[in-house]
């Protein structure tokens, strides 16, 4: 009892310190109610603590403390991703929108606004902002997401009414060593609409980002993200997606470097015959902690969900995977698949995995697997015996290992972009 009281006290202390540093929430405009409710959630839940079960493998301190830990800006010449893709670019520098660097957001089939500029009292996003996030707080609390809803300074509101002509590309630049950015995006796809959202860049010294995605019947949402590449940046991101009948959600994330990354993805399949795929590949070296936390709820008939996560870790890097499939009563004919694998390039690195299935329907097919292994010595020797130097051979095998996750990206041009980026990163590291 005493220990628990002590913990609550610690949590309350850390939470109020953080809330004090952020000040009062905005009380005007259509988001005011959602912000206030979100703030109440944060106060009630308390920000994450190292002793929370959901943070067992990832120490949240850096993501929670009031003062952001400075992160040096990466000065090497960065391999740009998505450069070959025709897209509408929206640029945020340390969380602040950069109009000069951004494209005109006019795009056929899509309406794009900035959260900071959507000042009317009534807005289409009103029923969504903070709503999917709030739904995603049960059964597991996600206080950093609630904090985001309460304090987001900007973000984009994207309403896809038809098939988007090209992808919307969110670019996050990092220029200040002490930036602490909070962005919140709301994306709504009308029935049968199609949209691809790309995200890339390190964003800030500390980045808290929420993306709420509401996908109506028959609509398709694709998301490809490349998080990188500053060594010291920290990020906590959440995706909350709700899927209607026969809709599709596919998300892929590549992460290279970054001291701390926690990517949560909370998906609710609410309409029959919907499909949700979440995949990730990460390459970690040294002072690197990467956490993928996925929660997929099947609440309709004949839906498919798929989680594919691959991590390559070296020099003491840590990878975490917490993946859950919850099949609710009546969600018959559910097809749930989950695999998480790590390739440990040395004995100092570690991979911690917690795959979970919770099933309340009887006619379902769910499988999960998690593996952790070293590089295949026989394959390495085979390559070397053909003249391929050890470093290059290791890279080839690493790339082959990650490729399985990258192939989850449906669009071939985008998947090539990502594979190329991984290759370049591996190449450069070897330099």
């Amino acid at each position: 009892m005493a220990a628990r009281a002590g913990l609550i006290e610690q949590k309350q202390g850390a939470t109020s310190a953080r809330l004090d540093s952020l000040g009062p929430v905005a009380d005007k405009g259509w988001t005011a109610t959602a912000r206030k409710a979100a703030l109440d959630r944060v106060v009630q839940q308390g920000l994450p603590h190292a002793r929370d079960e959901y943070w067992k493998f990832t120490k949240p301190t850096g993501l929670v403390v009031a003062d952001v830990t400075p992160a040096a800006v990466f000065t090497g010449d960065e391999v740009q991703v998505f450069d070959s893709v025709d897209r509408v670019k929206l640029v945020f520098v340390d969380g602040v929108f950069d109009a000069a660097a951004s494209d005109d957001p006019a795009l056929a089939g899509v309406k794009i606004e900035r959260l900071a500029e959507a000042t009317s009292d009534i807005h289409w996003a009103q029923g969504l902002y903070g709503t999917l996030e709030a739904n995603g707080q049960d059964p597991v609390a996600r206080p950093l997401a609630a904090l985001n809803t309460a304090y987001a300074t900007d973000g984009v509101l994207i309403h896809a009414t038809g098939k988007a002509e090209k992808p919307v590309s969110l670019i996050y630049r990092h220029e200040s060593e002490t930036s602490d950015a909070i962005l919140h995006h709301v994306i709504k796809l009308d029935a049968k609409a199609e949209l691809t959202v790309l995200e890339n860049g390190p964003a800030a010294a500390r980045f808290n980002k929420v993306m709420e995605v509401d996908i109506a019947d028959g609509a398709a949402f694709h998301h490809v993200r490349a998080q990188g590449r500053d060594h010291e940046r920290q990020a906590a991101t959440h995706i909350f997606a709700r899927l209607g009948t026969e809709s599709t959600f596919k998300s892929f994330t590549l992460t290279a470097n970054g001291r701390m990354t926690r990517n949560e993805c909370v998906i609710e399949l609410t309409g029959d015959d919907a499909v949700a795929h979440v995949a990730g590949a990460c390459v970690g070296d040294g002072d690197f902690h990467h956490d993928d936390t996925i929660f997929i709820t099947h609440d309709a008939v004949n839906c498919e969900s798929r989680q594919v996560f691959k991590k390559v870790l070296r020099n003491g890097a840590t990878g975490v995977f917490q993946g859950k499939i919850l099949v609710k009563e009546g969600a018959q004919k559910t097809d749930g698949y989950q695999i998480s694998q790590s390739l440990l390039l040395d004995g100092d690195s570690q991979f911690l995995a917690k795959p979970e299935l919770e099933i309340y329907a009887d006619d379902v097919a769910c499988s999960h697997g998690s593996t952790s292994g070293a590089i295949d010595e026989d394959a390495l020797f085979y390559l070397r015996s053909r003249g391929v130097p050890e470093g290059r051979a290791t890279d080839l095998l690493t790339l082959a290992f990650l490729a399985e996750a990258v192939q989850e990206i449906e669009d071939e041009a985008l998947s090539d972009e990502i594979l190329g980026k991984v290759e370049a990163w591996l190449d450069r590291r070897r330099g």
Partner: protein
Amino acid sequence: MGAPDGADEKDEKMLEIKNLQVKLEDEDKQILKGVDLTVEAGKVHAIMGPNGSGKSTLSYVLSGKDGYEVTGGEATLDGDDLLDMEAEERAAAGLFLAFQYPVEIPGVGNMTFLRTAVNAQRKARGEDEMSATDFLKFVREKAKDLKIDADMLKRPVNVGFSGGEKKRNEILQMAVLQPRMCILDETDSGLDVDAMKLVSEGVNALRDAGRGFLVITHYQRLLDHIKPDVVHIMADGRIIKTGGPELALEVEQNGYADLLAEAE
């Protein structure tokens, strides 16, 4: 001045193995107990011997596989100390091993594998990379001779290949890399008659004055197709007898028992 006339005529020693002794790195098990063997340029040497006599170990040690400890003796290629080189350096120096059990590499396309290998060796030798189109043409030609189709070139290295396809793929790599010293470890095992013919033709096509072969086999059969100049019998980590092609026939007819008894 000029070189003395005799220099060109005497057989050019390529692979020289002297009193090579090898044990497992983490076990006190001596596998090679003093192997002596010299392969000259232009010659095909065969090694025959019962299972477990150390043939594969010899081929692995020569090509630089980890897990073995050389406890004595030496091995040189064109006079250079092989045992002092990394596996990839040995390959760049011209050594090639066709594996008894070719390794599957999921996720790495066969063509990517070949191009990476060729260009890595070229780079190590200070040569320019081959252009992608030239390379493609070159590989397709070699592949056609071995009846390796475009699909096999695209698929991940050896993944889902039949036993025969794997062995043909080994010979394809040899044909593409054009090594000076080729070691073939039981390339005939698991091959049907047609595949054996294909593989042998592939090997014979590479025979020339500048290239040496060490063909490890269990059976005389392969040696009907690839005619050896010299045959060695290996048993219990040693070469116990060396002779001409007739030695292989003797083994075929009488087995190893007599030879083993003779060596006692």
